[in-house]
C-alpha cells in the first residue's frame, strides 16, 4: 500500500537532497528567495538566515573583480523565460566565483543550473525551483582537463566575439516565445533597436510589424522539426526611425540545440538585401516602363536567335501581325503578303552584312485586311563575328502609308493641275528670286526650268518691257503688297504675247515673309480684242462723223434757204434738227475720246490762252441751250494758261451742261474762277439733285451714270466726267466735286499756272 508522503516528509526530502535548491518567488526583479535547502547553503557557504526573504542577488554577491558578472544576468533571463514559457530551462557551464567556506577568498566554480516552474491550479507560475549542481571544481580537474577547459573557454570567447562582430545579423531566439537571448550589433542596426530594447523579450513583441505575416510559422517549424529554413528576399516590414519600411532579408533559421540534442530555440541569421532588391526592382521597373512605352507607341518588339531560328516576340508584335498572342516565327512569315515575301527574304539576307535589318511589307490578317508593317532591327554578332541575334521593332505603318499615298495623290493632282492649267504659275523667295515656274510658263517661253530661276525668267520678257517689269516687282516686293504687271514676252511660237502677272506675298504661320506665289495669264487674245474694240470704235465714230457732216451741211443749207423764203417755222424745225445733230456729234466725240484715252492716244495741242475769254465764250454758247437757267459768271482777273484750249473748253462745256442737266428745277448756275498762288480754279455750282455721299467718288469713273429712279430722266453714256477728269489730269491739274443730295453740286478743276513753255 502506498504511503502518502506528508508535507514534512517533502521538507525532509528537500533538505537532504544532494541537489542544491532554491525556491524563488516570481517577484521580478527581486526574485525573493522563499526557501533554501542544506545542500545549497553548503554550496555557497552561507547561512539560511542570510538568504531567506532576500533577493536572488544576495545569493550571488557580485565579485568586483569578476569579469563575467553577466552570468547573473543570464540567470535572470532564465527566470524570465521560465515564467513566460512555463517550461524548465537549463543554463550549462555557468561560471561563478563563490566565496570559499570560512575564507575571504573567491573560488571559480562551474555550475549547471536548471530553473523549473511550479504552476498553480490556474496553470500560472507560482514559483521557481532553482536547482544548481556543481559541474566540477577546477582544482580537482587534472592538468589535461584544465587545459581542455581553457581551450573551450577561449573557443567560446572567440565564438562570442565572432558572433558580435559578424557582418551579418545573428540572434538566438529561445523557447516558443522566441525570447531574444542574444543579438549582435548588425541585427540590432537592421531592426533599428538597441540590444537592451530586444534582449529578454519575445522578438515579435518588439518587432510588432513583423507579427502575423508568417515569420512565426517559419520559426515554429524550425523549432518543431529541427529543419533549418533558408529564405531569400523576404519582405519584412520594419519600423525604422518612425517610418514603416519594407526591408528585404535573406534569412537562415537554424535550430538551436541543447547539449542533449533538444531544440530550445532558433538561431536566426539575417542579411539585409534591401538595396540589392531595390536596385533589382528599379531595373524591373525601368524595364517595365520601357516595355510600356514601346507598347504605348504601338511598337512591337522581337528577339530573333539566328542560330536556332527561334524568335521571341512581344504581345504588340503579335497583334500587329493579326494574332491574339505571340506565335512561332514561321506563323508570322506565313501571313506576309506573297508579293512581299521576296523583299523580306532579301532584307534578311542583307542584314548580317549591313548590321541592320529593314523592310516594309504587307501582312494579311485573318479577316483578309491588309496592313503595312515596318521591320527595323539590329544584328548582334558573337565572339567569332558570327551574327547571332537580331533585336528590333515592328511598327504598323498602314495609316502612314495611306497618308503618304493620299499626299502623293494630291501632289500628283496638283502637279497635273499646274501643268494642265492654261496659266503660268510661279513662286519667288523672300529676296524676289524665282524658285519655281510651272510647265505652262516653260512651254510659253521655250526656256527650260533652270533658266527661269532667280532673275533668269526676265530673258523671256521683251527688251522694252524689262525695266518696267523689274521696277514694278522690286517696288511691290519692298512693300510686300499684291503684285500686278502687264508685259510682253517672246513666245516660243515666234510671236510676241501679252501677259498679266499677279502674285500675293506669302507668310508662314508665325508671320515670316517667305516670298510670292503668283500666276501669269496670257492676255494676248484679250489685248487683241481690246485693240479690235478700240479700232472699231475709232473707225466707227470716224465713219459716223462723215454722214453727220453731210447731214449738217444739208440741214444748214436748207435752213438758210427756208429763212430766205421767209419760212420761219420750217427753218426753226431745221435748227432743232441741227441741235440734235450736235448732240449726236458730241456722243460720237465722247466715244472717240474714251477710245483715245484707253489706248493712250489722247493728244493735246497746247498753247497759251486767256481762260476768262474761253469761259465767257462757252458760257455764252451754253446760255443759248437753256432758257430756264441763268449762267452767272464770277471771274477772277484775266489769266493766261498753257494748255489745249479746245480740250479744256470741252471740260467746261461738259461741266456746265451737266449742271443744266441735273438741276431741272433750279434757275441759276454759278461759274466762278479763283486765282491762287500756283494755280487757277474754276467751279460750276448748281442747285440740283446733288450726289449721294456713297457715289461721290464714282462720278469720275468710266460709264458711271446717275442711277436709281431718276435714271431714265438723265440720258447719257456716262463718259463725260470720265473724259473731263482724264483731260484735266493729263493737263497737270486736279478735278473734284462737292455735293449734297437734293441741294446741288459744285464741280471744280484747277490748272497749274506755269511759264510759257511746251509740255
Amino acid at each position, binding site marked *: 500500500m502506498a504511503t502518502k508522503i506528508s508535507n514534512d516528509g517533502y521538507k525532509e526530502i528537500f533538505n537532504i537532497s544532494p541537489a542544491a535548491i532554491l525556491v524563488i518567488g516570481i517577484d521580478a526583479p527581486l526574485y525573493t528567495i522563499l526557501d533554501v535547502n542544506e545542500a545549497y547553503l553548503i554550496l555557497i557557504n552561507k547561512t539560511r538566515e542570510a538568504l531567506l526573504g532576500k533577493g536572488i542577488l544576495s545569493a550571488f554577491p557580485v565579485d568586483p573583480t569578476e569579469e563575467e558578472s553577466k552570468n547573473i544576468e543570464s540567470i535572470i533571463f532564465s527566470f524570465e523565460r521560465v515564467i513566460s514559457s512555463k517550461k524548465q530551462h537549463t543554463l550549462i557551464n555557468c561560471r561563478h566565483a563563490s566565496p570559499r567556506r570560512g575564507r575571504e577568498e573567491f573560488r571559480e566554480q562551474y555550475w549547471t543550473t536548471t530553473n523549473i516552474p511550479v504552476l498553480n491550479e490556474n496553470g500560472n507560475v507560482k514559483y521557481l525551483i532553482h536547482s544548481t549542481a556543481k559541474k566540477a571544481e577546477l582544482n580537482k580537474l587534472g592538468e589535461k582537463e584544465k587545459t581542455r577547459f581553457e581551450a573551450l573557454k577561449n573557443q567560446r570567447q572567440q565564438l562570442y566575439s565572432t558572433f558580435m562582430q559578424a557582418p551579418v545579423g545573428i540572434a538566438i531566439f529561445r523557447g516558443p516565445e522566441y525570447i531574444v537571448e542574444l543579438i549582435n550589433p548588425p541585427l540590432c542596426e537592421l531592426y533599428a533597436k538597441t540590444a537592451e530594447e530586444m534582449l529578454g523579450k519575445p522578438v515579435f513583441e518588439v518587432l510588432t510589424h513583423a507579427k502575423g505575416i508568417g515569420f512565426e510559422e517559419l520559426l515554429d517549424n524550425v523549432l518543431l522539426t529541427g529543419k533549418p529554413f533558408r529564405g531569400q528576399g523576404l519582405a519584412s516590414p520594419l519600423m525604422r526611425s518612425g517610418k514603416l519600411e519594407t526591408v528585404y532579408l535573406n534569412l537562415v533559421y537554424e535550430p538551436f540545440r541543447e547539449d542533449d540534442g533538444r531544440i530550445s530555440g532558433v538561431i536566426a541569421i539575417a542579411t539585409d538585401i534591401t538595396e540589392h532588391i531595390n536596385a533589382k526592382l528599379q531595373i524591373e521597373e525601368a524595364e517595365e516602363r520601357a516595355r510600356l512605352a514601346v507598347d504605348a507607341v504601338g511598337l512591337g518588339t522581337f528577339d530573333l536567335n539566328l542560330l536556332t531560328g527561334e524568335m521571341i516576340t512581344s504581345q504588340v508584335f503579335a497583334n500587329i501581325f493579326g494574332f491574339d498572342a505571340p506565335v512561332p516565327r514561321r506563323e508570322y512569315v506565313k501571313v506576309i503578303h506573297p508579293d512581299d515575301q521576296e523583299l523580306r527574304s532579301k532584307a534578311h539576307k542583307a542584314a548580317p552584312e549591313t548590321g541592320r535589318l529593314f523592310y516594309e511589307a504587307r501582312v494579311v490578317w485573318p479577316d483578309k485586311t491588309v496592313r503595312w508593317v515596318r521591320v527595323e532591327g539590329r544584328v548582334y554578332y558573337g565572339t567569332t563575328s558570327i551574327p547571332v541575334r537580331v533585336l528590333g521593332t515592328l511598327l504598323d505603318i498602314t495609316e502612314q502609308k495611306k497618308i503618304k499615298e493620299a499626299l502623293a495623290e494630291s501632289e500628283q493632282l496638283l502637279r497635273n493641275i499646274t501643268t494642265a492649267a492654261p496659266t503660268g504659275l510661279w513662286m519667288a523667295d523672300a529676296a524676289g528670286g524665282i524658285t519655281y515656274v510651272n510647265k505652262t510658263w516653260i512651254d510659253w517661253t521655250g526656256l527650260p526650268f533652270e533658266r527661269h530661276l532667280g532673275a533668269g525668267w526676265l530673258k523671256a520678257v521683251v527688251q522694252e518691257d524689262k525695266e518696267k517689269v523689274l521696277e514694278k516687282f522690286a517696288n511691290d516686293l519692298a512693300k510686300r503688297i499684291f503684285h500686278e504687271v502687264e508685259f510682253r514676252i517672246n513666245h516660243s511660237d515666234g510671236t510676241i504675247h501679252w501677259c498679266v502677272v499677279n502674285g500675293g506675298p506669302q507668310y508662314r504661320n508665325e508671320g515670316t515673309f517667305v516670298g510670292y506665289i503668283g500666276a501669269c495669264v496670257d492676255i494676248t487674245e484679250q489685248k487683241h480684242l481690246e485693240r479690235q474694240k478700240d479700232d472699231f470704235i475709232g473707225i466707227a465714230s470716224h465713219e459716223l462723223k462723215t454722214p453727220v457732216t453731210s447731214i449738217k*451741211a444739208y440741214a444748214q443749207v436748207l435752213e438758210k434757204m427756208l429763212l430766205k423764203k421767209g419760212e420761219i417755222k420750217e427753218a426753226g424745225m431745221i435748227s432743232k434738227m441741227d441741235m440734235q445733230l450736235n448732240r449726236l456729234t458730241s456722243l460720237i466725240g465722247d466715244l472717240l475720246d474714251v477710245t483715245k484715252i484707253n489706248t493712250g492716244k489722247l493728244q493735246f*495741242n497746247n498753247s497759251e490762252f486767256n481762260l476768262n475769254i474761253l469761259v465767257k465764250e462757252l458760257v455764252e454758247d451754253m446760255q443759248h441751250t437753256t432758257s430756264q437757267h441763268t449762267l452767272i459768271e464770277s471771274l477772277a482777273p484775266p489769266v493766261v494758261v498753257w494748255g489745249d484750249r479746245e480740250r479744256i473748253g470741252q471740260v467746261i462745256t461738259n461741266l456746265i451742261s451737266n449742271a443744266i442737266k441735273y438741276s431741272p428745277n433750279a434757275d441759276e448756275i454759278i461759274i466762278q474762277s479763283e486765282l491762287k498762288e500756283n494755280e487757277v480754279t474754276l467751279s460750276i455750282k448748281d442747285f440740283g439733285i446733288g450726289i449721294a455721299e456713297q457715289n461721290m467718288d464714282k462720278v469720275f469713273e468710266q460709264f458711271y451714270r446717275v442711277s436709281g429712279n431718276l435714271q431714265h430722266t438723265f440720258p447719257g453714256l456716262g463718259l463725260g466726267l470720265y473724259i473731263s477728269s482724264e483731260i484735266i489730269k493729263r493737263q497737270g491739274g486736279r478735278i473734284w466735286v462737292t455735293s449734297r443730295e437734293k441741294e446741288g453740286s459744285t464741280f471744280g478743276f484747277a490748272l497749274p499756272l506755269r511759264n510759257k513753255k511746251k509740255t
Partner: protein
Amino acid sequence: MNKLKKIIIADDNPGILDAISILLEFEGYDVLGLQNCDSLLTMDSELPDLILLDIWMSGTDGRDICKHLKQKPATCKIPIVLISASRDIEHSAIDAGADGFLAKPFEMNDLLEKVKKHIS
C-alpha cells in the same frame, strides 16, 4: 458781173461733196467737187481761189497733196484748208503747209468764215 470765186472741194464722200457744194453755191461761189485728188496734182490752169481738202481719202493723204501743191510754184499761193474727222491732226495739217483746218463735223458758219477769210 464779177467772175465768181472758184473753190475746189475734194472729199471721197459724195454726200459731203454734194451738201457743201450746194451750200457754197448758195453762198455765191463757183464750186468744183472732186472725189479723188489725181487732177489736183496735175492742174496748172484754171486755178481755184481756195481748196478745201479732206485729209483721209481713200488711197491718198490730203496732207501729202497739200505739201505737193505748196511746193509747186504754180499752186503754192492757193490757200488750202484741210478737213478731217480727227481733230488731233490739226498740227500736222498746219505742218503740211495748210492755211486752215476744219474738224468734221463742222458748223457751216465756221466753214463760211474760213472761206471768207482766205478769199478776199
